[in-house]
């Protein structure tokens, strides 16, 4: 556990030194623009504009970081051979992998938390009042973070057995597909052969369901998210990450370094 934490903290330090957190400046600019825009349009929809823009920005920025840094987490260390001296220490490969994952998820936590706070302040500034439903913004940001953790796990898995470029493509592709899992489930079964129906059913459960993490509409209208849904999403992310990371560990533990 200690060794995982050591790797994770170094990964976090790397992200900070590589100026990953500079994206916060970009996000601040987006929020300012959103506030000004909201002020210009008719009253009553400031909340919708600010929340929608803000959450989208958090999601997009987070996805870029997750995919690009996520794929590089392990592959860069193998490429540059920084891993050699490390693996000669009493550290197991799974500890290294989990540490890398934990480090980036920690980076994303700091990042999304800061952006979520910024979004909340912008909302407060625009509305000048506070309602209970406004806390949904934080739930939405939490869900985005869960989603990003899942993306990082997938990026890590792909980078363990293919080239970085392909890993980026696979991760991005799977993310897009994962947005439409519900549609896949809802396909009319009548038009398909039984085999095909069974296949799509299995596929829809195998693929990560990213749309589940989207509560933008609720947040935009200040409606509350049921507690059971929060628990459900959390469990889903934990279980799915565990499965993906277990596979990644299995692949990486057998891998010959260059």
């Amino acid at each position, binding site marked *: 556990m*200690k*060794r995982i934490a*050591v790797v994770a903290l*170094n990964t976090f*330090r*790397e992200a900070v*030194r*590589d100026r990953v957190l500079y994206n916060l400046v970009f996000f601040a600019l987006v929020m300012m623009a959103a506030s000004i825009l909201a002020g210009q349009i008719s009253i009553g929809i400031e909340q919708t504009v600010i929340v929608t823009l803000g959450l989208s920005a958090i999601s997009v920025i987070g996805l870029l970081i997750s995919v690009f840094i996520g794929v590089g987490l392990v592959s860069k260390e193998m490429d*540059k*051979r*920084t*891993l*050699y*001296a*490390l*693996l*000669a*220490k*009493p*550290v*197991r490969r799974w500890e290294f992998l989990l540490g890398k994952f934990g480090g980036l998820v920690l980076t994303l936590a700091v990042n999304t938390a800061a952006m979520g706070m910024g979004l909340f302040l912008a909302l407060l500034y625009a509305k000048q009042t506070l309602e209970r439903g406004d806390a949904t913004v934080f739930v939405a940001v939490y869900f985005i973070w869960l989603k990003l953790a899942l993306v990082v796990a997938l990026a890590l898995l792909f980078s363990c057995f293919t080239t970085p470029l392909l890993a980026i493509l696979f991760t991005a592709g799977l993310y897009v597909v994962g947005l439409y899992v519900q549609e896949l489930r809802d396909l009319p079964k009548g038009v398909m052969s039984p085999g095909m129906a069974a296949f799509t059913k299995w596929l829809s459960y195998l693929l990560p369901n990213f749309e589940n993490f989207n509560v933008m509409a609720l947040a935009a209208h200040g409606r509350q998210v049921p507690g059971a849904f929060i628990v459900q999403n959390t469990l889903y992310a934990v279980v799915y990450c565990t499965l993906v990371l277990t596979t990644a560990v299995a692949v990486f533990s*057998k891998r*010959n*370094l260059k």
Partner: protein
Amino acid sequence: MRQALSKNENMTELAIDTENLTKEYPYGFLHLKKKASLEGLNMQVETGEVFGFIGPNGAGKSTTIKLLLRLIFPTAGSARILGKPIGDIDMHRDIGYLPEQPYFYDYLTAEELLDYLARFHDLTAADRKARIQRMLKKVGLETAKKIQLRKYSKGMLQRVGLAQAILHDPKVVILDEPMSGLDPVGRREVRDIILELKRDGKTVLFSTHILSDAEMLCDRVGVIVGGKLRGVGAPEQIVDMKSQGMEILFELPGQSTTPLLSKATRTGDRYRLQVPEEEIYGAIDQLRAAGARILSVVEMKATLEEYFMNLVEADRAQAAAVEVSGK
């Protein structure tokens, strides 16, 4: 029972023990063909000895070392370090490793890197800090310790690599080409560090191309060519110890001359004459008669280098023969 015990005792005396260690890499269409980088290596390194691993480029030295450290996995065979199978990662607390052409996180300073890597060992914070400062001093990086590694030169990285390899006081130190990229001073310092490790009773396995270093430092060397171990022994043992004759270095003043001059080679004012051992006194007498000033007389011994070259030549000839017969 008794036999088993004594066998066990023997095993613990070996610092490194490989058995039929083999690594093949697939290549070509669909990876159907296989090329062996290392073929059935059986090598024993005893506790407390400095063992030199020498061989030409691509011989399999780094392959062996990476196999020992579980960076790559063998196609066949097994190995033990300090009596434990190499799959046991806990044993790494007693191993230090310097990778070939080391490269480290370039966003860290030397001090931070050592701190990061030291955290994987069970050291108290105070002990860790003290050791890091001692190591930085030892490898001559005290003044550069606050500089990010991206600004380090090749030799400086090599020094950081050495520092992290010995920081935790390991029992077995494995160095892949520790001298490469170092200036003469640095090489001297590394030699001193290796000797110091030996004095402290550590086992050192290092690979090198620099035969004089191997000759100077090693209790034993292993010569590996084409993935196979070709000879193991003390440097002076594995080369033919028979004297190859004597060499006289002399100066000849003015116009004087002697029939021996035709056999000598001249560099500047000096001559070098090689004669069989039984003719040495006759030659000296002749030279004195001609008024030569004799500067030195030394015995010519086969060097590790010649031995090494012979092996490599033989291997090339064999490879060429195989190629021809294969066509």
